[in-house]
């Protein structure tokens, strides 16, 4: 699925921080631009970069910007540990290393004519956002488009303004739910999988793209199957620890697949036997 080849894939290129925006308490979005002359940074929705914080470490982060605006590289990251916490402290003008883009992409171009259902959990909305942009920029080529997004609480809703903007569109169905909420919240409460049974898509024609914690994806697949989707119409983005990002070191091996090279986006029928297994 990946049509982009990367020159010198093991050598990080320097990128300058254009802005860093706090999205929620533990999540931020950083915008980067190249400092060695490349003005365009083409990528396909679903691909990731290896981001290198000098002297600290390198991590895979999905690209969450608009593939039709490739001058700026956008990454939304949740601070969980050493590297991501250091990234959170970046300031405008700082420089980090970037390798990529790597990996397979969401099958947006292959599924024209179908209904498209995006199911995102938590930070999983970030890797799906470029696919949303792509679908919306060619809206007339798709059937119904539905986004189901679940997160922890109202304060954890990612890209809130954008979600509100999308909800206002007549050609898109957006449903947001939170796992818990206190009283003033007037939106939906409950797990994202609850939204699937009532979603307005045709299971015979729909293709689902799912991203979130693995347990959430497993239960999402069950609900999609209950609605009648076949395994080959369900796509998931898998996360495994990575080192090289290009299929050399074996760090991300997932059964016979290397997540960095053969994924991170897989159709469910390719990973169904592995998904239920603990750390492979």
């Amino acid at each position: 699925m990946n049509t982009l080849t990367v020159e010198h894939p093991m050598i990080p290129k320097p990128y300058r921080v254009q802005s860093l925006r706090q999205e929620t308490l533990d999540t931020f979005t950083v915008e980067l631009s190249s400092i060695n002359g490349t003005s365009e940074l083409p990528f396909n929705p679903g691909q990731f970069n290896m981001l290198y914080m000098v002297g600290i470490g390198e991590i895979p982060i999905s690209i969450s910007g608009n593939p039709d605006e490739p001058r700026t590289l956008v990454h939304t990251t949740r601070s969980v540990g050493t590297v991501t916490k250091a990234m959170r402290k970046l300031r405008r003008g700082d420089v980090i290393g970037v390798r990529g883009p790597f990996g397979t992409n969401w099958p947006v171009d292959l599924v024209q004519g179908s209904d498209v259902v995006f199911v995102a959990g938590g930070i999983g909305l970030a890797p799906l956002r470029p696919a949303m942009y792509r679908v919306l920029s060619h809206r007339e080529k798709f059937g119904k488009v539905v986004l189901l997004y679940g997160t922890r609480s109202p304060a954890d809703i990612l890209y809130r303004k954008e979600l509100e903007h999308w909800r206002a569109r007549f050609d898109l169905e957006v449903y947001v739910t939170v796992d818990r909420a206190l009283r003033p919240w007037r939106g939906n409460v409950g797990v994202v999988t609850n939204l699937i049974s009532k979603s307005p898509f045709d299971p015979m024609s729909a293709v689902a793209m799912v991203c979130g914690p693995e347990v959430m994806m497993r239960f999402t697949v069950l609900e999609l199957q209950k609605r009648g989707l076949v395994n080959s119409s369900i796509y998931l983005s898998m996360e495994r620890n990575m080192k090289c990002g290009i299929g050399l070191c074996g760090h991300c091996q997932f059964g016979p697949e290397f997540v960095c090279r053969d994924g991170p986006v897989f159709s469910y029928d390719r990973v169904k036997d592995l998904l239920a297994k603990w750390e492979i």
Partner: protein
Amino acid sequence: MENLEPILTQHPFLQGLDQKDFDLLVGCAMNVRFDADAMMCREGEEATQFFIIRSGRVTIELHVPGKGIVQIQTLSEGDILGWSWLFAPYRWRFDARATELTRAIALDGRCLRTKCEADRDLGYKLLKRFSEILEQRLEAMRLQLLDLYSTT
């Protein structure tokens, strides 16, 4: 008065029941409506009904001292609210509040219990359907408890 039978016979929750079952159910059913913010049931009160939500939105909530009102689940069109009428001591375990104008069919729990005792076949069919709902809610609750999106 609206004839509730067509609504009951078309509801997925009651699919597969016989005509005689519907004849019994209709005798225990009535149309109800709740304005936005009206309480549909309160924790501790006697659970005399369950509701088939026809339109609107309902939140199941619980007052937690020190935290306030915690919302646990939102229900909407097609959902079933309440199973406390089925199990002794027949008391609501949660509050349920309509968050917008909500229309529902209320089924009288005492009336149904009596009919289910007399007609075990109907009792079994209803219990099977409620068990399915309990299973779905339990699964959802387990996922909520896992706190999947937390960083810690």
